[in-house]
């Protein structure tokens, strides 16, 4: 067996490439785990549902791009595909609401209501996180986003 000379030993590195690769892999896995569990997450919605009083009106799923309208509300719901989404009009005996479903942003925004007073729901921000809701109190209409998380509270 050939012995290394003193100079050879001095020149040799502490780590060879094959030493570093396993260390790097271990480090990468640890960092990934930390990132996955500790970094903030945004809970995009998978869809939303609409209720009138305690009755279900419709549900929508972004992945399937499909509306399921309850039979008893067929006459009350009007859908129009436009601007990368849908404008949905719901007319009940309590009044009319119009909201826009943005397919790309996965959000829903109330754009009009014919209630007599302040139209609060039209000033509410677009909902885009699970658990978000837009509620038109005078018309008893609720739009509630579905997903895997709880949206941060909004006050105002």
């Amino acid at each position, binding site marked *: 067996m050939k012995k290394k000379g003193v100079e050879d030993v001095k020149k040799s590195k502490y780590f060879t490439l094959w030493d570093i690769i396993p260390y790097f892999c271990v480090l990468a*896995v640890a960092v990934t785990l930390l990132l996955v*569990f500790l970094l903030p997450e*945004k809970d995009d919605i998978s869809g939303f549902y609409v209720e009138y009083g305690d009755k279900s009106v419709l549900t929508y799923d972004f992945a399937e791009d499909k509306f399921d309208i309850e039979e008893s509300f067929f006459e009350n719901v009007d859908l129009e595909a436009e601007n990368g989404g849908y404008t949905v009009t719901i007319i009940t005996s309590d*009044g009319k609401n119009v909201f826009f479903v943005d397919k790309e942003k996965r959000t829903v925004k109330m754009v009009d209501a014919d209630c*007599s007073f*302040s139209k609060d729901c039209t000033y509410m921000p677009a909902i885009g996180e699970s658990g978000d809701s837009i509620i038109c109190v005078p018309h008893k209409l609720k739009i509630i986003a579905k997903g895997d998380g709880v949206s*941060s*509270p*909004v006050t105002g």
Partner: protein
Amino acid sequence: MAKRIFKVAALITLSLIFVVGLCACRITVDGMDVTDYTGVQYTTYDYFNTYCSLSCYLPGERSEELKTLWNGEIRSVLEKVNGLLSVDGENSDIRAFNEADAGAVLTIDEVTFDALSLAKQAYEDTEGAFNPALALSVDLWGFSPRFNEQGYAPEKPYDREDYKNSLPEQKYIDAFLSLSDFSETEVYEENGVYCIKKSASFAEVDGTVYTQQLDLSGIGKGYCADMIAEILKDHGFYFGYVNIGGSSISLLKNARKDVGAELGEWAVTVLSPEGNGEYYFEAYLKDVSLATSGSYQQYYEKDGIRYSHILDPYTGAPYQSDVLTASVYGENAALCDAYTTAMCVLGSEKALAMAAKLEGYTYTLAVGTTENYKVITNVDGKEIR
């Protein structure tokens, strides 16, 4: 030899990092392991002429338990508190008070007593800037619940056909203001019975006699939000929040990490006073209540002046100050709500002086005009406009 030791040391160090990484897979918030809090539940109810939403993180196997709680005890609390404190409820203590003669003594429920006691405290803390005895003025200016209903029609002597485009007559403003001294109404307990003695003051306008009327809608929402949060905690649900109308919120802890916030905190966004649905501030909070009031919702404009639903107890008219919106954070949502109203009414200078005396309460104010305002705050958070 040294090289070998170095290699071993490096491997041990990296292994430790790996182990720490694995430990991070267990997430704890204030000593509670929330790793298995994969369940999410939210629901909404219609009460207080607005919405009430509940959102919770929980272990998946407790979903049915929470549903039962929501549809049972929590719904009962909402119905009871709303029923007792609304101005128009069939069995409302407040409605009975409002319809009673001057000087009348009425028995009230413990819930009403508690809410009125908080209202009394807020009235004193704010030196009258928060005043629940302005219900007649609120109605006069067109902001009581009946104006939110479809098909509004004038029915009272002071009603206007087009109430958003005509202002009330001064004689009514003055008369109703003269009935708004809340200190004249007494709230007390006698032999286990809760009572309220109505102010003996009355005012007559065009042959109609008016007496003091109360509106506890703001206090009521906060009071109820806190009650529900307590129920959730009593049943071991510590992660989520109760939101009534966006204006009164009771926060529990957050089981996830919100951007900008510490683990366990919520990044609470505050709506911009511009009224455009955007946000202007983000506060990082947990296990605390909060409330927001402002002039950017429920208002009408005439001749360039905005008339909002918050009444100034010193003028009997909608407030006109430099505070566009105020949020207050503290242990009691009902008091938070009262303090936000007072801060709007008082204007920034007096509001800050008042806030300095409120121990345990922090605030965020948007001060100026809708087009140009500054943010004054002492809470952990940041501007996001």
